[in-house]
């Protein structure tokens, strides 16, 4: 009887730390969510309807976008960050004052009216950008990406990516995954694939993998599957897979490669399938974490 109890105690001891880790993780996640909600509440109370009323179109020649841009130029970086957070969370509340304010924000970001002259002919994509150096909330990037998905333009897409890189490249890993969550990266990859930017998306993703961005395995897989579909990039796609070895969260396995194999089985000859098998067999090794 005693022995049985002893075994029970042992199993209990093993189980407790695992549960504790889960509880701790959930608590951290909850804390972050609460902090984010608090930030949104604060931003919305600071920049409320009364604030936006000042920029509403009242029959004068000043457009809401231009008026907002002029105001942004007088604000500090922290204030701009708060304003953008309020904008993306107040679209419905202020729609009667400034219709589609998220689109206004997108236009302020990509083609600001007040810095048109400064931007003309500039090589730097973020030249004259009103939000340069401002740490924007992930939800703000999400809003910008949603807007670009509605009306895609490569130059604007590149501007958003460059802004993200300028703000995130030097962040420590933990902060990086909070500032640029995997879902947001997935959204970027999805837009890049949909708009068919194989080269640009490839270099961006390669850079992000090297810098430790939280690129999710599914985004990585979607990208190289897309690359393999692009004419002339088939071999690049196979080489691209090896980038996963230098990460600590993406493992090359059959689940990841299955799509390429299925496509190859359906549309290629036996020797070609075998060649693919040989190529990938060599690339299967543990990632950095392993």
């Amino acid at each position, binding site marked *: 009887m005693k022995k049985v109890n002893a075994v029970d105690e042992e199993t209990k001891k093993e189980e407790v730390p695992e549960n504790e880790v889960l509880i701790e993780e959930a608590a951290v996640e909850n804390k972050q969510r609460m902090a984010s909600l608090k930030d949104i509440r604060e931003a919305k109370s600071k920049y409320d309807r009364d604030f936006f009323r000042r920029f509403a179109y009242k029959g004068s020649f000043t457009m809401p976008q231009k008026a907002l841009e002029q105001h942004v130029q007088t604000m500090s970086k922290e204030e701009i960050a708060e304003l953008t957070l309020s904008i993306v969370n107040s679209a419905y509340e202020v729609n009667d004052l400034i219709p589609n304010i998220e689109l206004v924000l997108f236009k302020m970001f990509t083609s600001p009216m007040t810095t048109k002259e400064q931007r003309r002919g500039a090589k730097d994509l973020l030249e004259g950008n009103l939000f340069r150096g401002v740490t924007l909330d992930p939800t703000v990037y999400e809003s910008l990406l949603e807007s670009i998905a509605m009306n895609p333009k490569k130059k604007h897409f590149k501007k958003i990516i460059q802004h993200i890189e300028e703000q995130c490249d030097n962040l420590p890993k933990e902060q990086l995954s909070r500032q640029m969550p995997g879902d947001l990266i997935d959204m970027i990859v999805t837009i890049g694939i949909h708009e068919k930017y194989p080269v640009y998306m490839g270099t961006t993703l390669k850079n992000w993998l090297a810098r430790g961005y939280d690129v999710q395995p599914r985004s990585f897989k979607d990208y190289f599957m897309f690359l393999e579909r692009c004419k002339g990039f088939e071999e690049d796609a196979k080489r691209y897979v090896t980038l996963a070895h230098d990460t600590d969260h993406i493992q090359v396995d059959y689940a990841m490669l299955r799509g390429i194999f299925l496509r190859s089985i359906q549309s290629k000859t036996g020797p070609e399938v*075998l060649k693919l098998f040989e190529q990938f067999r060599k690339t299967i090794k*543990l990632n950095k974490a392993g």
Partner: protein
Amino acid sequence: MVAAERNDKIKDIKIEFYDGLIGDLMNAKAYSLSQIIQSEKAREKFGDDVKDDLISLEIFAHQFKLDEFRSVWKELFGEESNKYDLTAFICEEMSHNLVKFTREDHKTARLEMTDQLHDQIIKHGIFMSDKLFYSLVYLYTESQQW
């Protein structure tokens, strides 16, 4: 991670890679390719697994390769000793694959192997499931020289 753990992990990933590919090739009825991949897997020496032998049986059965089929069959319960503990599942798979040899010139060998299987089932007291029963009845009736 210690070296042994790393080795186990990479081994699992490789096994999953081979099995996944073989499964997809089998679904696409690319049996000769499956056979090549299966032999490549065998060369990696991951260790004995009854699943591998059963897949080999299926690959050979689909291609009517009776000699190769028979050699795997013998491995599964050879003349010397049984490689694995015989279970109802193994017997079901063996008989199910044997049914695939439908050619006239395979009849004698098929009947002989059915007898062998039947003896083993009796010897090991294996439960005769409906699937196994159906396969055996089919094999006996269809292998008769009328």
